[in-house]
């Protein structure tokens, strides 16, 4: 008994303080991608749409539509276009409106 007591004292409280203070483990989470519009061309965007396994990406016209709700943070888009896609680091994504999770990403690569 004294051993686990001493060990417990040494390690301190393991419970996160999350809503009050940020949790360090959040940095390790896989997160949805963020895009760099200047690096995106229409062809590159179409490649990303094709590579997304959960249908989170679409390109109905001259912009990339990213449905965060459908994203599984698998990282395949970041693998397909590492210069245009990077992990966003956002995990606090709860939303009361489904439409707030659908984001429009402009494509600037063409006009450069």
């Amino acid at each position, binding site marked *: 008994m004294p051993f686990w007591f001493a060990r417990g004292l040494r390690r301190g409280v393991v419970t996160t303080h999350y809503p009050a203070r940020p949790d360090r483990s959040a940095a390790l989470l896989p997160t949805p991608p963020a895009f760099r519009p200047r*690096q995106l061309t229409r062809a590159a965007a179409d490649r990303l749409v094709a590579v997304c396994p959960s249908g989170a990406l679409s390109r109905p016209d001259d912009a990339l539509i990213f449905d965060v709700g459908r994203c599984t943070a698998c990282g395949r888009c970041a693998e397909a276009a590492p210069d245009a896609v990077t992990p966003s680091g956002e995990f606090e994504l*709860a939303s009361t409106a489904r439409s707030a999770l659908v984001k429009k990403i402009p494509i600037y690569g063409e006009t450069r």
Partner: protein
Amino acid sequence: MSPSQDTPGQDTPGQDLSQAARQLRDTIAVQFGRSLHIRTLDTGSCAVCEQEIRLLSAPHYDLHRLGFFFTPAPRHADLLLVTGPMVRAFGEAARKTYKAIPGPKVVMATGACALGGVYPADPFVHGNVGEVLPVDVWVPGCPPSPLALLQGLGVAVGRLAEKTPGLTFIAGQDIAGGAG
């Protein structure tokens, strides 16, 4: 509770919800500010969401410190935590579970399946929890981490602010400008 809180989503899921949801959230912030009971509902998920939900009770996350509790009975629940793509065979059971929860109540759709990713609608799945239940809070992730679930619960009871309306998912212009 006011009797109207049972009806909004039942007949017309997905319509006129924002107003009702706002009223509901205000009520819930008052009623359940410090104590909220959660009933989980698996509508055909792969059980990884359940794994993350179970972790909420583990020492690291310990959701009881925030006044959230799991309950095995819908009649005792305030919040319905739904996972999975809503298998069609489960639709009726989901509706009954929702009906069994006394108002005011909150429905939280959890995970990419529940939000319409992964499984498109087909003869076997609705492909979206919103097809059957009036969802108040959407929590993306595959699976959503316990931290994301905690934030979702905070948003559901009005204790935490939503961040999503402000997020663009466009990487910082300085990085993009520097490279291109």
